[in-house]
């Protein structure tokens, strides 16, 4: 009997984590449809805050934006009082999608199938032919519209991001993030934002392989050789990993080492990060120092499926949505600030070449997780080995040659999944 068939016969509830704990991740986690189904329930519809969209995407009354929480279709709206709502994007009648576009501006939400009509907060407003036609047909006497609304999510805005949750009892977003994570998000997103562009990428792997990949600072200079190939003198090898209290989220940062800078650069705070390189188009790495803490590269994850990147001046949100047990859609939302000058904006635009579906530095992440997916699917009972930097699950403030954040992810995952 092939290992795949055998695994199919085990119930997900019988799943046992290997005794080595979070230094092992059984390959079955990436291929088992039963586990995938449980994740929808325990993670995405469980006690987590899920990134939905940005405040500025639904700026005006009547704006809506569709997304997914796990695989559940969700619509986020702004009502006439400026309040944000999120609902399952599924008509209470027959279950059809109510909103079909990515974004729109509407007076109310209307299902195209039988014209059931909802307020912007998801309350059922009108049912076509409720009283029948010429006295015939119609809904029963006891039909109560209050019992048939779009299923609401709890929503909260934090630093321009809208989060939603299905959980009834959960702390607020800031507490969910923890003080260290929240304060770094405020550093990066705590001022009016501007969207500079978006795209998405289909990666052919389980969503958790990308969640691991984002937390894996060990692979950065090994798989991604752009900087070394072009002899980019980054001067920023000093860095570390901070884990949130519950280990779910992480921050990986690199700091430029102190260097002698020309006085005029320091004063102007422009072009001070002059990166020497063998590039024919050095404009790619033109950068300015935005913050006083010296951190020039950071990747910050928020459990379960989002990340904020700030590499040089390239600020982006990455949101990765599960699209089946072995498919993930990775969204790139490139940002700037309202206050950016034209010159700053154009540096952000140039640096967008470093990441994304065609990112010079990181395009390998589009295929590497698929290589793991393909390499592991025949052996669900074997596990990956995650002991770089030791077996602990603690912050490592002086080195990024560690897999501590990957262990942190599995620590959080085991907890919420009950594995």
């Amino acid at each position, binding site marked *: 009997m092939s290992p795949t068939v055998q695994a199919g016969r085990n119930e997900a509830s019988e799943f046992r984590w290997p005794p080595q704990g979070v230094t092992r991740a059984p390959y079955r986690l990436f291929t088992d449809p039963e586990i995938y189904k449980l994740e929808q329930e325990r993670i995405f519809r469980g006690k987590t805050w899920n990134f939905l969209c940005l405040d500025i995407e639904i700026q005006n009354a009547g704006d809506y934006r569709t997304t997914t929480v796990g695989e559940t279709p969700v619509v986020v709206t702004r009502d006439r009082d400026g309040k944000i709502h999120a609902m399952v994007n599924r008509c209470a009648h027959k279950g059809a999608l109510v909103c079909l576009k*990515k974004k729109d501006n509407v007076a109310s939400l209307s299902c195209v199938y039988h014209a059931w009509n909802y307020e912007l907060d998801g309350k059922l407003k009108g049912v076509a032919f409720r009283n029948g036609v010429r006295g015939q047909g119609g809904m029963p006497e006891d039909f109560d519209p209050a019992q048939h609304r779009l299923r609401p999510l709890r929503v909260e805005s934090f630093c321009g991001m809208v989060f939603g949750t299905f959980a009834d009892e959960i702390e607020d977003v800031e507490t969910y993030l923890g003080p260290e994570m929240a304060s770094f998000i405020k550093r990066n997103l705590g001022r009016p934002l501007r*969207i*500079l*562009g*978006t*795209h*998405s*990428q*289909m*990666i*052919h792997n389980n969503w958790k392989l990308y969640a691991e990949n984002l937390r894996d600072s060990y692979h950065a200079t090994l*798989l991604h*050789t*752009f900087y*070394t*190939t*072009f002899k980019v003198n980054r001067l920023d090898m000093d860095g570390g990993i901070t884990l949130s209290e519950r280990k779910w989220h992480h921050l990986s940062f690199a700091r430029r080492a102190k260097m002698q800078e020309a006085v005029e650069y320091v004063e102007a705070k422009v072009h001070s990060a002059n990166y020497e390189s063998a*590039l*024919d*188009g*050095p*404009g*790619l790495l033109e950068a300015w120092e935005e913050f006083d803490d010296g951190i020039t590269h950071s990747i910050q994850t928020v459990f379960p499926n989002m990340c904020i990147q700030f590499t040089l001046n390239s600020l982006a949100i990455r949101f990765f949505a599960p699209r089946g047990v072995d498919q993930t*859609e990775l969204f790139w939302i*490139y940002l700037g600030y309202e206050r950016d000058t034209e010159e700053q*904006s*154009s540096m*952000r*635009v*140039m640096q*967008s*070449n470093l990441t*994304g*579906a*065609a990112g*010079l530095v990181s*395009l*390998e992440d*589009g*295929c*590497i997780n*698929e290589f793991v997916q393909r390499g592991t699917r025949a052996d669900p009972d074997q596990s990956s080995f995650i002991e770089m930097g030791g077996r602990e699950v603690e912050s490592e403030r002086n080195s990024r040659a560690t897999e501590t954040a990957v262990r942190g992810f599995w620590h959080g995952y085991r907890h919420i999944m009950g594995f």
Partner: protein
Amino acid sequence: MHNVLDKPLKQVAAPTRDQVVDLITAYAHSVDDMRLDAWPQFFTSDALYHVTTRENHEAGLPIGVVRCVGRGMMQDRVKAFYSANIFEPHTYSHMIGRSEFLEPTSDVAISARSNFQIVRTMETGRMDLFAVGKYLDEVVIEDGQPCFRKRVVILDSRNVDILIVIPL
């Protein structure tokens, strides 16, 4: 007067429509045949090559998927392709529709729009419709050769399968 004629005349004539179509075709065949070294030579030295999505383009947003300003950035992409980036080997086959010539924006450039479809073949033999969209081109004569001064590649889909490392 003689002084002026002594110097080589600066080429000011716009390319012909045939030259534009030949350039668009030669570019596609060169990429399809994996002659990527030649890719930057299809552009003027200060050209813009921009790959974006219909959604970004229509919203007037500056970031798409690839943005090269000048041939140097294109050469870096080629060098990265050969020596830095890691990916599963694959090739493209372009199918390009008949070009529509647009109102000229200057007397030295010709503007054209051409629809394209690109089928990607992986080393495993798998073939996929990888990209569908349109080229918006501005072609000029530089050093006697027709070249793209601007090539904006607008993808119909917001979604890229796996990654883009070979230019579209």
